[in-house]
């Protein structure tokens, strides 16, 4: 197997055993980028020199017997994570030459854990999008079939992991932007509990919804990664003081007797192929010992409406700092989708409309939160498809903003409630990946990892890759 197709777990072992060096590992990823990125457009910036330098340093530390959790592992960062001295663009012309003078907290943590950053990945500009087509630097393609979207907004990060350009990649999930692309590219995507991971240094989209997460090939890798990134940050006042457990500990415990809920509202109106795939997944979960229970989340249908009031409102305010004075280009450089959301948000917050829209949305948000709270009295976790449709072709939805927004219908409510969600591969439909997601109560990542790991080890979809090993 080529080094860049290893999991983090295997790579850590190999590095420790001196089977290969970090430089070799990182080089394998850089080679893959050189070979495939022209086509897939997953990276905006490749940090070849810096990465090799970091890899060399990692090798010294490995030789020294240092035991850092991600030492020498090549990872990618979504290009809204501030990286000191390295261009950070949000995939927008507004920031095409912006170089942050500081690292995001998560980036510091990853660096301190020994990770090697191979580059900054492409995304829907400002994280506005569900397909990966909204970038000012060109659309990202799905390596499983280059005519198809990889999903968004963390498109480049998902593609970098599934195509072997990095062993893991950071992302953000505000309405589904990690879980959706993970499900379209046959990898694992984690959206942690809101506040579990610090947002400091990550270009804000919607402050009360943005969650910092990541992509990996396996659930175990995902848990390993969260061990590094999770925790209270004094620079982010919305990170609760909850202790960070060792997320790896309970992975092998199985799911016997676990009560997993299927919300009926999440399977109404989905495509038949998605429904069939989902049914097969439920059978497997049952076989693994879980009890499948039908539940209802009655306010599900209002999620998109609530989301598309609250999110653009916060977006319109968060993007106000981009006036071209201290950094970046002027506001005429914003793309169409950004302009649309800024205007929508400005409108719903404006005099005369605030009560009818923003205030109303905040109230319905409470109802959606209560739906989940009530559900978790009956079940331990919830399972559902991630996308209501099979992945679509590039260009198919791009001219219909509302249609594009509706791709998030199964993912947004989780963000409105601030609960964690784990997207795990659940098979293929005509060669194209599809996934399922597990949603849990706040701070239940351990539980979600346990379910995901058990399911994944049984189904073994992670063994498939878009290119030969």
């Amino acid at each position, binding site marked *: 197997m080529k080094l860049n197709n290893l999991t983090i777990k295997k790579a850590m072992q190999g590095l420790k055993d001196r089977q290969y060096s970090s430089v070799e590992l990182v080089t394998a990823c850089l080679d893959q980028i050189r070979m495939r990125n022209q086509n897939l457009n997953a990276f905006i910036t490749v940090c070849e020199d810096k990465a090799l330098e970091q890899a060399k340093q990692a090798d010294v530390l490995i030789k020294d017997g240092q035991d850092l959790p991600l030492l020498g592992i090549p990872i990618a960062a979504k290009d*809204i*994570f*501030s990286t000191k001295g390295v261009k*950070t663009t*949000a995939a927008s012309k507004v*920031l095409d030459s*912006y170089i*942050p*003078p*500081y690292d*995001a907290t998560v980036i510091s943590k990853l660096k301190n854990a020994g990770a090697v950053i191979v580059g900054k990945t492409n995304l829907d500009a400002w994280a506005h999008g569900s397909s990966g087509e909204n970038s000012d630097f060109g659309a990202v393609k799905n390596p499983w079939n280059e005519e198809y979207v990889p999903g968004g907004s963390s498109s480049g990060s998902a593609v970098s992991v599934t195509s072997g350009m990095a062993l893991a990649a950071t992302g953000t999930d505000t309405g589904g932007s990690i879980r959706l692309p993970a499900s379209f590219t046959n990898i694992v995507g984690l959206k942690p509990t809101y506040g579990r991971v610090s*947002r*400091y*240094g*990550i*270009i*804000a989209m919607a*402050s*009360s919804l943005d969650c910092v997460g990541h992509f990996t090939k396996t659930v175990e890798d995902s848990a390993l990664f969260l061990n590094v990134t999770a925790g209270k940050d*004094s*620079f*982010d*006042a*919305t990170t609760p003081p909850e202790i960070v457990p060792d997320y790896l500990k309970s992975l092998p415990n199985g799911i016997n007797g676990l009560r997993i809920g299927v919300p009926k509202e999440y399977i109404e109106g989905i495509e038949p192929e998605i429904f069939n795939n989902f049914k097969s997944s439920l059978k497997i979960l049952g076989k693994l010992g879980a009890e499948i229970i039908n539940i209802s989340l009655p306010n599900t249908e209002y999620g998109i409406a609530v989301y598309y009031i609250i999110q653009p*409102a*916060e977006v*319109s*305010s968060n*993007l*106000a*700092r*981009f*006036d071209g*004075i*201290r*950094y970046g280009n002027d506001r005429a450089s914003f793309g169409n989708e950004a302009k649309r959301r800024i205007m929508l948000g*400005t409108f719903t*917050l*404006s*005099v005369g409309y*605030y009560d009818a829209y*923003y205030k109303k949305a905040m109230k319905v948000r409470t109802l959606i939160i209560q739906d989940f709270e009530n559900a978790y009295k009956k079940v331990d976790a919830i399972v559902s498809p991630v996308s209501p449709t099979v992945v679509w072709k590039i260009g198919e939805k791009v001219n219909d903003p509302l249609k594009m927004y509706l791709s998030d219908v199964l993912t947004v409510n989780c963000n409105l409630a601030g609960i964690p969600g784990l997207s795990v591969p659940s098979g293929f439909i005509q060669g194209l990946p599809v996934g399922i997601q597990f949603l849990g109560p706040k701070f239940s990542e351990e539980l979600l990892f346990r379910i995901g790991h058990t399911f994944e080890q049984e189904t073994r979809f992670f063994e498939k890759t878009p290119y030969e090993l």
Partner: protein
Amino acid sequence: MKKRLMNYKVIIGLEVHVELKTQSKMFCGCLTDYFGQKPNSHTCPVCLGLPGALPVPNQQAIEWCVQIGLALNCQIPLFAKFDRKNYFYPDLSKGYQISQYDEPFCLGGHIQIKGKKFGITRVHMEEDTGKLTHEGGSSLIDFNRSGVPLVEIVTEPDFDNAKDVKAYLQKLQQIVRYLGVSDADMEKGQMRLEPNISITLNSNSKILPKYKVEVKNINSFGFVEKAIDFEIKRQLEILEKGDTPKQETRGWDEEKNGTVSQRVKEEANDYRYFPEPDIPPIRWTAKQIEILKSQIPELPDEKLTRFEKEFSLSMYDAEILVKDDQQANYFEQAVKDASGKVTPKQIANYIINKKISIDEILPAKLIEDILTANKTEEININELRAIVQKVLQDNPKVTAEFKNGKENVIQFAIGQVMYIIKKKIDVNIVRKLILEELK
């Protein structure tokens, strides 16, 4: 044709911003000490509004804001939060200011000034903007001031003349200095006044006029009365013509000696307030508010009353002593050190009239000096009587005028005696002897 306005009433409400003298800024750890510093030398991702930065509020600033509210007799709601005030301006690095909208720290207080009571609507916390200076065809921005904690104090529209406004400002400055939360130096921009002025033609009506004019850029005490008087006059002239003054923002122009219209956008700003998602709200317990209240030192009004009573001082003297809390404390220490050997009144006189520098002389030393000055030397009574008799002999005019009822000629005689003696002796003894001899 001009109408003489008979029944008008001036209505003034005041917005004052006070800069808190915390060490660090409101939402980040940058130094607040920006005056005279190299531009953009005290900034960080947070106060510079870099992408990805997040605010974390300063506990000290919040507590001081509440204490200002308590000193102004406000209610302190147990729940408060921050909100975003959205607008675009080059000195506003995030494109929004973190402030407080509908749930501020303090509500509904009042302040008493020379027997008049003025309502305080609210006291809330916000952050300052960067500083704009103009040079040729450009505007230059320095963000050192961006993020410095500001407390905004809003009064009810209870003022109707410039003198009261000035007195209010002086009182407010005194209070925040006593609290130790701000130096409130207007010239340094640490206390800023924005009066809202309008005039109603029917002084009996409780309905407020349909317009109001906000005046900015009054940056010294000297301009307060000038600016307000000018604006009142300007509005009266318009009203006399039968027109209504335009609702607008005007700036005090020192050179023109008047207020000038500011070319802001015609549409009123729609600030689109919404709750700040990056900062959890603040919830107090009643106990915490009690503790904050107990930490407030004796405030000027209380101290004034106490000084008048406890030290038998005139209001005039007490006011001067109490003006500055350091001076007031100095005075009390001196009284203590005197242990009755010098009266408080004497000490007050000394401090006020001799204008001593309280930084240069310790209270105990001051008492020593006063005692020395009061000290009189001994003198032999017979010697003194001999001198008194001589003076009266040499100045027969004294005896004559005294017998004619001119009693104050005694002062002259005393002067003569003191001149001969050239020693500091008790004047009362001299007077007594002179009177004896004259009889």
